[in-house]
């Protein structure tokens, strides 16, 4: 088992004829992901190394039975592509695109929240890897192996770092889910932690947060009330100066709330162990799993 992506995934890639879109669609297919279609308006009827391209998501879904979408179009087109994927009946939309305007994200999130049977991951995320089963996105899969640790993270490269430290300690992953660092993520820590809690293969959950917002604090409350599996957390940004935006739109510190210290304390208060470095986080996870 794994969460969200796996052997049942039938992937349609929006923006498949772009340079990066082609590269990662093929990369995902090479890993074993069932890439059934691509969408690029005006290029319907073409193919990308055998993957059929359609003008619309509706045509792609009708023809290929796609159930998962990866959004790889520039920010200017991404909100529209997400909405189109939902309208065409896609159940899981994974938006890699970085730099989508915040008000677009607001509209998309609120609209999708009124529709049933659709889940959005991202935007501005590295995607989801279920080692040995499927890879949807840009996570460098060769650094991870199958295992029993579920990872959920707001940051892409930080996820790789933690996953890599775990791999060095000898542990693999059920799934690695990047939820992205944007102001309005489609799925929250809570959404993904709930999936890992229900996933029989996952024995321990690692969540990697960062300064800004209150998603980690909300996750702490949720974990205390609903999660039986051990959770280990890491928070980036302990030494970030207040009032500065650091890269991710999410990573801004204002006043006391939203600081790494506040987040770590909120998590520890609910029994979640928090590592101070990626290395220490992996060590704690390894300790628990070896106990």
């Amino acid at each position, binding site marked *: 088992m794994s969460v969200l992506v796996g052997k049942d995934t039938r992937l349609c890639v929006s923006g498949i004829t772009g340079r990066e879109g082609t590269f990662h669609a093929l990369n995902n297919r090479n890993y074993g992901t069932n890439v059934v279609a691509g969408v690029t308006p005006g290029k319907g009827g073409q193919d990308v190394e055998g993957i059929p391209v359609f003008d619309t998501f509706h045509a792609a879904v009708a023809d290929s039975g796609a159930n998962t979408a990866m959004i790889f179009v520039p920010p200017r087109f991404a909100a529209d592509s997400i909405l189109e994927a939902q309208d065409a009946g896609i159940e899981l939309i994974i938006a890699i695109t970085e730099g989508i305007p915040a008000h677009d994200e607001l509209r998309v999130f609120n609209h999708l929240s009124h529709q049933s049977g659709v889940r959005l991951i991202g935007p501005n995320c590295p995607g989801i890897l279920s080692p040995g089963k499927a890879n949807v996105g840009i996570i460098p899969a060769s650094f991870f192996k199958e295992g029993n640790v579920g990872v959920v993270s707001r*940051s892409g490269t930080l996820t790789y*770092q933690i996953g890599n430290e775990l791999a060095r300690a000898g542990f693999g992953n059920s799934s690695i889910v990047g939820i992205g660092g944007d102001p309005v993520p489609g799925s929250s820590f809570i959404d993904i932690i709930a999936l890992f809690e229900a996933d029989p293969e996952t024995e321990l959950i690692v969540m990697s947060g960062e300064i800004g917002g209150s998603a980690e604090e909300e996750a702490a409350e949720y974990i205390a009330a609903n999660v039986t599996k051990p959770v280990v957390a890491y928070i980036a940004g302990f030494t970030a100066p207040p009032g500065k935006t650091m890269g991710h739109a999410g990573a801004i510190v204002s006043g006391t709330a939203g600081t790494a210290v506040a987040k770590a304390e909120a998590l520890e208060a609910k029994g979640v162990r928090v590592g101070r470095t990626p290395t220490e986080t992996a060590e704690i996870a390894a300790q628990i799993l070896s106990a």
Partner: protein
Amino acid sequence: MDLLEYQGKQLFARHGVAVPSGLPATTVAEAVDAADKIGYPCVVKAQVQVGGRGKAGGIKVAQDRQEAQLHSQAILGMDIKGHTVHEIWVEAASDIASEYYASIVFDRSAKAPLVMLSTQGGMDIEEVAERDPNAIAKLHVDPLLGFQEFHGRRLAFEAGVDEDVVRPIAAILARLYEAFVAEEAMLVEVNPLIITGDRDVWALDAKVTLDDNALYRHPENAALRNPGNEDPQEQMAHERGLTFVKLDGDIGILGNGAGLVMSTIDVVSQAGGSPANFLDAGGGSKAEAITSAVEVILANPNVKAVLFNIFGGITRCDEVAKGLIEAFAQINPIVPFVVRLDGTNDVEGRRLLAEANLPNVHAQDTMLGAAQKVVELAQGVAS
């Protein structure tokens, strides 16, 4: 992107929010000229993106031309909490009967704009919130439905505004919301929102933060970026499309991905070092981008050592190595570099670096080891 007060007011005016008339000036002569045009009394206001301008002496009323000259002389070039005043705004003095507060923020948790209104304006709203939380009326607006008339009425009644201004206050909130949405702002704040002696409602200040990601849809706003108010190094980074924040220390940091860079800064700090910057080279950086980033980092004379911490996903380690090699060829840095490469094409990247055999470049296998090494180097313990 934060706007200056007067830029925010001009933006407000486009959406029907009443603001006092005024003119910007960057020299004393311009300021006096502006004051003459506006008439006396007028107010000379320092245009810096920081609170507490009034207390710092950055806002002064001029009763006549002589005072306009004196005040603009005093304020231009003044330092307010580390911000140098390059520009002032001269505006007509207002007849203030009451000072209210209004704002709209992008509330991430609620996934909705949060609108706030208080009759206790003119002071720090965080203080009001702490002293008397009930003094601030708040509500979220469903972004798909938009701001409704009842939202405005409810805020006005719940904040307890004077009865005769319930309608105009509700109307100005609707216009601020329109501005918030139409201009794709992350924050719109008016403090104070004043009631004049004639019972009109005016925005006497304006704090507006725009979404950088949406500026392409608002060329007139994108053009507002005010280079005079930005640190030269940050400006250099911005022009090169890099996500950069200047810090106080002496260790230059480059990584890929905001989370990893923040984590790198934490780990370097924990190892006893003091980072000089946050620099996210971004996903998929090519060699030229890396070379360009090295130039930005070294533009800070405090930098004693530089740490590259790369875990390649879209970013390919061979491209990073090539960029670093090219940077050495072009600018021949004198400070030591510690380089940690993992992820996509890491073997090739490490090979390229080893072959280039750059002077004073130290390869490290782990993030922790790399952090410790760069701290040692910056402190001159090792070389």
